[in-house]
Every structure is written in C-alpha cells, then in structure tokens.
C-alpha cells in the first residue's frame, strides 16, 4: 500500500517537472525576441553584424539610447502620442459608460435592435469605413490633424460599450431601486452607484484604450502628414526608412522605449487585461 502511494507520488512529481520543462521551453521562445531587442540596443555599431551573432554585447552601450533619441525630436512625438491617448481614454470613458448603462439597465422601445446593431459593428472591418471617413474628414479640412483620430472616441466604441454593459449587468438591481425610491436621477445612479462599483471594468477600459491607442499605426499614418504631428509609431516607421538596415542598435533602442510603457502597464494591470478578454471573449 505504502509502496503504491510512493510510486504514485513519484509519478506526480515527474509529471509536474515535465509540465515545468515544457512551459519553460515555450516561455523562453516567447521572451527571446524581447531579450534580443534589448541586447541589440546595447551593442556597439561594429558588433551588430558580426557572424555568427553574439547573444550578449561585449560591452554595454547605454549611450545608444541617448544618440538614437537625438536623431529625431522624440519628445515632440511622445507629447503628440500622449495627447491622443489620454484624450481618447477620456472620450471612451464618457461615451461608453453612458451607452453601457442605457443598454444594461434601461427599458425602451427599439433598444434590442439598437443593441444588435452595435454588436454587428464590432465585427465590421475598419477598412470599410477608412476611406469614406477619410473623404469626409478631408472635405471639412480635418485631414491633416488630430481631430479624425480623437473625435470618434467621444462617440462610443462598441467593444468598450459591450464590455461595460456586461459588467453593469452583474450589479444587483436592488441597489438602484433603493436609490430610485430616494429620488435619485438616472445620471445620479450611474455616477454614485455604478461607477464606483465598476472600477475594475473601468480600469480594463483605460488599460485597453491606452494600449490600443499607443500601438495604433494605421489611422495616424493616414491622417498625420506634417511631421510635427507625428506619433511615436509613425516616427519610428520614418526612422526605419532613414536609418533602417544599418543602425539596428539605434532602431532597437527606440523600439525598446516604444514598447516600455505597454510592458509597464502589463506588469501592473495584467489582471484587468485578462478580465477584459474573459468578459468579452475578444481582444479589442
């Protein structure tokens, strides 16, 4: 009996070790590109193209970062990017909480069909609206500026409306009924009851909106023509055109800096990201 139990425990231990071994091998593959990017960003220019490649730089050249940052006015691009990112986060929070509350809690004729319409637009490829939007924004003189990238955020983003609505549905009905009996208005209920309870969902929206807008490339590429207006992602693409192919240490230094904010957010807010995915079954 005891021997049997010991054999069983041994098998369990081998199993666990095997799981760790497989998981770790995969994890190394997944992390390797980041490490390679970091390693390259610290190499001397004459060390980038040696063959076979060196895994680690023979000496650390932190000055690559300063030199790369000097090549283009990245401070300007950072300010542009943050302006768009923060403006869009605020816009999304405003428009999406309102609509989400309406869809989650209020009864009105036509609501179901509007909700289905909204879900339908979540699947719509952005490429279908890209050209007509561009023509529309151009015709009112907005085509070279931030407005086309920022105004739509104040008019709802279906994915976030859906996410917040799913969360609002889980809030017990009794709370607002009590508040309504006390004479609270709909906005009052949303502000004083729902928003405080929905902090995790709001955090999810903030995190997803930050990452999405920070990484966004296509619409800035279409709309921001003056280099003064460029965002980080557009600037990096331009940097690639000017210095790519040779100065990979500078390119990787800039890339590391561009990815760093998203990585930081990931480390602190991973919980909200995963919650967002599980709640909506999607990835923005």
């Amino acid at each position, binding site marked *: 009996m005891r021997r049997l139990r010991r054999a069983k425990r041994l098998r369990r231990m081998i199993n666990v070790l095997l799981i760790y071994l497989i*998981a770790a091998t995969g994890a190394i593959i997944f992390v390797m*590109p980041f490490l390679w990017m970091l390693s390259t960003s610290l190499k001397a220019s004459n060390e980038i193209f040696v063959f076979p490649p060196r895994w680690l730089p023979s000496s650390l050249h932190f000055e690559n970062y300063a030199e790369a940052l000097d090549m283009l006015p990245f401070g300007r691009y950072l300010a542009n990017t943050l302006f768009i990112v923060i403006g869009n986060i605020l816009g999304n929070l405003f428009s999406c909480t*309102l609509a989400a509350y309406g*869809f989650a809690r209020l009864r009105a004729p036509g609501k179901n069909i509007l909700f289905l319409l909204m879900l339908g637009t979540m699947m719509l490829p952005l490429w*279908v*609206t890209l050209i007509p939007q561009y023509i529309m924004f151009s015709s009112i003189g907005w085509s070279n500026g931030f407005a086309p990238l920022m105004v739509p955020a104040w*008019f709802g983003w279906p994915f976030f409306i859906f996410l917040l609505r799913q969360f609002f549905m889980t809030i017990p009905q009794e709370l607002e009924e009590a508040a309504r009996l006390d004479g609270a208005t709909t906005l009052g209920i949303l502000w004083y009851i729902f928003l405080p309870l929905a902090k995790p969902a709001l955090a999810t929206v903030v995190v997803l909106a930050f990452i999405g807008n920070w990484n966004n490339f296509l619409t800035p590429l279409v709309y921001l023509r003056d280099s003064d207006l460029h965002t980080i992602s557009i600037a990096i693409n331009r940097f690639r055109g000017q210095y790519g192919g040779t100065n990979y240490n500078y390119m990787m230094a800039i890339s590391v800096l561009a990815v760093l904010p998203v990585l930081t957010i990931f480390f602190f807010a991973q919980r909200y990201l995963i919650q967002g995915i599980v709640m909506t079954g999607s990835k923005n």
Partner: protein
Amino acid sequence: MALLPKQWRNLTPQQRETRDFYLMILPWLIGFVLFTGGPVIYSFIISLTNWTGMNTRDWVGLQNYVELFTVDPLFGTVLANTFIYGTVSVLLGVIAALGIALLMNQKVPGISIFRAIYYLPSVTSGIAIAIMWGWMFNPRSGLVNAVLALFGITGPTWFTSSQWAMPGLILVSLWGIGPNMIILLAGLQGIPQHLYDAARIDGANRWQEFTNVTLPMLSPVLFYVTVISLIGSFQIFENVLVLTNGGPGTATRVLVFDLYQNAFVNSRMGYASAQAWILCVVIMVMTWLMFRISRRMVHYEHGA
C-alpha cells in the same frame, strides 16, 4: 436634467426611462450614424465611382468590381495570399493556443507566471515590434538563423525570399496567440469536473478524456476563437508593410495592403472601396460557412 424642455418633465416613469435611454446612448448613436453606418453606405457609393483625389468622381457602376475580377492581374494573387495567410496562421495559431491552454490548465504552483509570459507579446503589437521581427529574421545576423545554425541548419533569407516570406509572416503571427490562449483557458476551466469523473469511472484514459470530454465541451469556444482570429488575420497590415512591403514581388501582397496602396498611394478611392466591400463580403461568407459547418461539429450544452 433641469435644462430639458418643460413638456419633458411631466412624463410617466416608463416615458422617462425611454427618454433617459435615448439620451444616454445618444453619443454612440450619433457616432454610429456619422462614423460607422453612414460611412458604410457611403463606401459602397464610392465603390461605384472612379473617385481619384478631389476632381474625378464619375459614376462607373460595377466597373471597379469587374476590373478587380477580370482585368487586375494582381487581385487573384492578392486574394490567394490573404487566404493562405489567414487559414495557415489561424490553424497553427489555434492549435498552439489550445496546447498552451491545456498546459496552463494544469494545477501546479507558479503556472500563472507562465501564463503572463505567453500572454505578454500580444499586447506589444505595433510598428516597433514589427521592426524587431525584421531584425530577428535578418538572414545574416538575426537570431532565428543563428538558432537554426546551432542545429546545423542554414536558415533561408526569409523576408527577401519569395518562398519564405509568407512562412515568416505566419511564424511571426504565432507570437500573438495570447488572447486566444486566455479565452480557451477560461473555456477549459468552465468544463464541469463531474464529466471527467464520470469518464474515469467508465475507464477512459487521458486521450479518450480529451477527445470525448474536453474537445466537445470546448468546441463552442474553439469555434468562436477560430472565427474571430480568421477575421483578424484577413486584415494583417503593419507586419506586411514593415517586413516585406508586400514582396518580394507579390509574394506577400495581401488584400488590405493592396487596398491601402490603391487608396492612399495611387489615390484610387473608388477602386479601393470596392476592395473593402469584397473584404467585407469575404468575411461575412466565411463566417456564415463556418457556422454552417460548425452546426454539425460544435456541441452546445443547452440545446441552442
């Protein structure tokens, strides 16, 4: 709400609720009309013109669509590239995501750290990451060929080879399977334990458990993940722009890249709009087809 017109104040509770509903969804509703619904219709109208820049915009009927399918020497290749990229990257991606999700579903301490590592790459998409991949796959000094060299393999020239550029793009796409892995993991965790207990009593081994319990129970999630990923993969743009620029030749010229070139490089807005509509129809038809096929293969627990 005191700013509202007087006749709005003496309403029944139900009328007030209706009013509040429409006031609250108003921003979205305006946005829907201005930025989604309107543009979708407008896009179709543009696709029936020869719109180029600001001066030319004559009605040409279905000519753009006819040209795409009969005259344009590129479009067939473009569609084929899109389908190949989509099907292969999604097939491999879903299998890999399922494998990792099964691994992450094992009850061993510290597994959540691995989960975070597998998920991490998918949040860092964008230009910087695409540039990093270009460097990873650099034929001479990139890490990928360096690792292959460790095993005595001489790696291909990847994105400058018309044969290997597409496989390269597909490999890069596998790095972003994190969200699918998380959705599948949530699906796995939702399978009731008693089904496994019952299977074990019936003498099922691990493989039989997987094929008779896990797969059928997970099939709705698997199906969902496949459809969503396919829709996404048909819209790959940044990696193509940075890594191959559609080349070499036309080896990796995919639909939205061709569309972008037509619209914003060649200023053929009408033509590109027709392509956007074809993309839309392709996505709708594929989704519908998959629903048809899945009806026989997907197991829904509560009827449906």
